Structures are given as structure tokens and as C-alpha cells.
């Protein structure tokens, strides 16, 4: 088979992250970022959220919720730096910082969700 660039893999992560971000982020951002602070809705109680967090399914959901959009950001931001600021000569540095950041964020998410009570 003809050799293919591995860009396909990163674009796949970018797409998956884009779908997750598009579907799942707006409602949570609206609730926790705007509606609850402004008092439009009552904040969920600590006990309620912790009981949700105990469910393995919720932890998996949150891991996907945090990890994939970070890879979406990494890919998009990398190209924005290439095109927007024309810093393509810093190719390797940008690549490492972007995907490294996404990996680090995913690792933090994994640790926090794994070790939650």
C-alpha cells in the first residue's frame, strides 16, 4: 500500500474532539459559566455532583469530554500559528507544545478522575 502521512491520525483526533466539543461543551459552559453564577438556575448541591462523579460512566464521559477537545485545540491552534503568524519555521516546537499540552491535560484529567473518591 502506498505510504501515507501520519497527519491522518491527528486530523482524526481533531475531528473527534470537534464533535465532542460541539455537542457537549455549550450546555455545561452555559450552566456553570453563565447561568449558575448569574443565579438563573440553582447550583447543584455538592452531594449531587459527587454522587454523579462516583459513577464510572460519568468519569469516562468526563475523561472523553476533557481529553478529545484538548486534541482538537492542539491541532487547530498548531495550524493557526503556522498560518496566522507564519511561524512555520518553529514547526517542531509548536508541534511539541500543542500536542504535549493536550497529552498533559489528558493525563491530568485521567489522574483527577481516577483518584476521585
Amino acid at each position: 500500500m502506498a505510504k501515507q502521512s501520519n497527519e491522518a491520525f491527528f486530523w482524526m483526533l481533531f475531528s473527534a474532539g470537534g464533535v465532542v466539543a460541539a455537542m457537549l461543551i455549550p450546555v455545561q459552559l452555559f450552566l456553570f459559566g453563565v447561568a449558575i453564577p448569574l443565579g438563573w438556575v440553582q447550583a447543584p448541591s455538592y452531594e449531587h455532583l459527587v454522587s454523579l462523579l462516583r459513577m464510572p460512566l460519568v468519569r469516562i464521559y468526563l475523561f472523553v469530554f476533557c481529553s478529545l477537545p484538548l486534541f482538537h485545540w492542539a491541532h487547530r491552534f498548531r495550524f493557526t500559528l503556522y498560518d496566522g503568524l507564519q511561524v512555520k519555521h518553529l514547526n517542531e516546537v509548536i508541534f511539541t507544545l500543542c500536542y504535549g499540552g493536550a497529552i498533559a491535560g489528558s493525563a491530568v484529567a485521567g489522574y483527577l478522575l481516577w483518584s476521585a473518591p
Partner: protein
Amino acid sequence: MSTSTLQPPKKPSGYKPFHPRWYRPRVSVYWWLGEWHYLKFILREISSVFVAWFVVETLLLVNALRQGPAAYEHYLKLMQNPLILVLNVVSLFFVVFHTITWFNLAPSAMPVRFGGKRVPDFLVAAPSYIAWIVVSVGVAWLLLR
């Protein structure tokens, strides 16, 4: 014969074809400010930064939940900080902008054919919007009940 080989005639070495000096304009670093369509594109790409920002906020919330009720109260107070609130409102705008542009553009990558003809993009995008509303209502109910 699989591929035809269209090779240009070999130039004798040392001869460089002459042309008068072409003008080669440089693309400015501010190319994206030159046109509304370019600016809209860059704003769409910048939305990814706000997506990443909300992931960070979510991780802060999870961390607060791990640490106890006091930490959770502290987090809620933090969300009420005017600067954070403004940042979140701006983030919400960008995240919704991402959602809408994503759903509208995704059908280009997956043309759907029905009865030999191509289904128009907005019809292919419609189920995504419906799913978005259903999922959002579901998540809101789970969180607020």
C-alpha cells in the same frame, strides 16, 4: 501501459530559461485582517482556545469536588468573579460559534446520496442540531435535578 511518462525535454546543463523579473508580492502577517471572510475563519480557529479554556475550568471543578464542599463553594464563588464571568460569556459565544460552524461544514466531508441525487447540506446537518439539543437537555436535567 499504466502511467504515461510526460517528461519535459531535457535542458542542456548550464542554460537557464530567461524571463523578465516577475513581481512577487509578500503575504503580510496581517493577511487575516484584510478580508471579513478571512477574519471569520481565524475567529473560528480561535474558538478552539476557548474550548481548551473550558476544559481547564471543568478540570478545576472536578478537582474542587475531590477536595470537599468548601472547595466546591470556593469554585462557585470563583465563577461569579466579574472577570471570569466576562471570560465565560465570551467563551460561550465562541463555543456556540464553533458548534454552528462545525455542524454546517461537516456535511461537506460526508456527501449523502439518496435516490442518485445528493442530499442538500442543511438536511444532513439537521440531525446534528437535533442531537445537540437532545444531549444538552439531557445533561442539564442530569445536573440540575
